[in-house]
């Protein structure tokens, strides 16, 4: 589903990603952990080219999206993304946020888009907040609307960039619950997160990043019980 070959990213002189290669299968849930500044977010953003890779190749569903002639907007329709700071559109209600993409990109008629948007809001437990504006919602509610907005495009892949790190502790659970449901339904997910409980339960594989490289990977059981790399050990010690 996702294949990355020798991905490098420079910010001027700073070598942020130093040759990353991974493969993610259909329906797989991959968690990425690592200290801040290790390149997790940059790597995630290279997967839908919100960040342009400096070199290397990224394949989504067999298509090389790093090819200069590829229609990146068409690719992005297939890849949903959820941000740390939600980034809901503040001038639109929750419902309008969710159906903006389907109406303008999938060209659905308004009635159909509204119906499926309401279904999605119901799925994330917010059907009663459809008419609320983002300002009137809590952080956890906003993030769930953001997930619904991404799902409305019926993506094949979902990317999560620290979806719970801007939330108050009591709201983290409601967002993680929605993500667990998605994982169980077979969505291919790449999640940057430090929510170890969620990772243990939902992730098939963990990648540990340090200084722009993958230093270790394995199932949650392997990594949590006997990490190999020193940096992994010290990192896990700090957050567990």
């Amino acid at each position, binding site marked *: 589903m996702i294949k990355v070959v020798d991905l490098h990213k420079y910010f001027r002189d700073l070598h942020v990603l130093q040759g990353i290669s991974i493969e993610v299968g259909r329906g797989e849930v991959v968690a990425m952990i690592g200290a801040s500044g290790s390149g997790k977010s940059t790597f995630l953003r290279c997967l*839908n080219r919100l960040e342009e890779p400096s070199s290397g190749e990224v394949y989504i569903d067999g298509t090389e999206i790093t090819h200069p002639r590829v229609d990146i*907007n068409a690719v*992005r329709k297939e890849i949903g993304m959820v941000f740390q700071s939600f980034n809901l559109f*503040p*001038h639109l209600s929750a419902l309008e946020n969710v159906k903006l993409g389907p109406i303008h990109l999938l060209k659905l008629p308004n009635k159909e888009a509204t119906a499926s948007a309401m279904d999605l809001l119901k799925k994330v437990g917010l059907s009663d907040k459809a008419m609320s504006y983002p300002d*009137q919602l809590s952080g956890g509610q906003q993030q769930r609307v953001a997930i619904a907005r991404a799902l409305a495009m019926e993506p094949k892949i979902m990317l999560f960039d620290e979806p719970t790190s801007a939330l108050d502790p009591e709201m983290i659970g409601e967002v993680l619950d929605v993500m667990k449901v998605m994982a169980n339904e077979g969505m291919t997910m790449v999640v940057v997160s430090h929510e170890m409980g969620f990772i243990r339960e939902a992730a098939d594989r963990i990648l540990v990043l340090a200084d722009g490289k993958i230093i270790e990977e394995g199932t949650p059981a392997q990594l949590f019980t006997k990490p190999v790399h020193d940096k992994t050990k010290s990192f896990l010690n700090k957050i567990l």
Partner: protein
Amino acid sequence: MRRGALQQVTDSKEKKPFHHPTKPYHRRKPWFQRYDFILGFLALIILYAFLILPEKGQPSSFEWGLIILFGLLTLGWVAIVTLDPEKPAWLGGVGAIGFMVVLGWIIYGYSGAQWKLLGRMFFNRTLMSDAWGVLLTGLDKTLALFVISAAISMVVGLILAVTRSFNNIVLNTFIVAYIDFFRSIPLLALVIVVYYALPFLGIQMGAYMAGIVSLSLSSSAFVTEYFRSGIESVHRGQVEASRSLGFNLLQTMRLVILPQAFRVVIPPLTGQMVGLIKATAIVSVVGLQELLKRAQEIMEWKTNPTPLFAVTIIYLIILLPLAHLSGILEKRMKKWVKKKA
């Protein structure tokens, strides 16, 4: 001997007898806020008005000094009354009204104006009954000038601002040069150059056209800057969220950025439009018979300035609602910023 902090605390305790015994933190009233002083001061001002203020008419420069001193004394008295939080509110109101009466009296008494001519010269109704029709033909031109230049400058400003946000270096250099040039050239100079200088290059246009061209050029430069600041005020994350859904740059601009930018831009934009209506008067210098020019013509013909006064009233009637329109628009755009109910 060096005095420690503890020593200072005991010092401040020794000062306690200065405070009111039952209210230890009560502020002591300074001498100038007591009623006897305020009343005395008022009496002094009234005496000054009767004894020292010069006769009505045109005062000499020494007498102007006396008048100004009188104004300052009154202002001082009002300040003392209004700045004291313990004085009742009505006293401050009375003081403020008193000060305005004094100001009005000074202008009435010493400006040298012949007030008995006021009615005939500024409010001459018999004269205006002939003049309204002519004035209104000027109003047509003023409004047309405004509407056309406003529309042009909005469209041009929006296009330039959006173009600028795409960060093409070559285009941006041109846009910045355009903005800098037309923002810094005085509109009066621009109108005169367009009307009198361009014909030497073979570009001929009438006063009406010259007005539209100069107003649009100048106004669009300002509008571009307002739109740009509005676009830049939208958070980067909004663009990323929109692009990650699959929207292209133009769709992102239209559906996500501009709706948010408009809200920020409304107040300065309304100000610009108010300025534009006022600026239409400048086109009278190249002979366009808009409102002001018409009024001047009638004034010369009837040798009476009532039409000029009427024109100021007309401008007022047009502009006052516009200022309130901005408030209404803002409120409507702000419905989504309402705090949690």
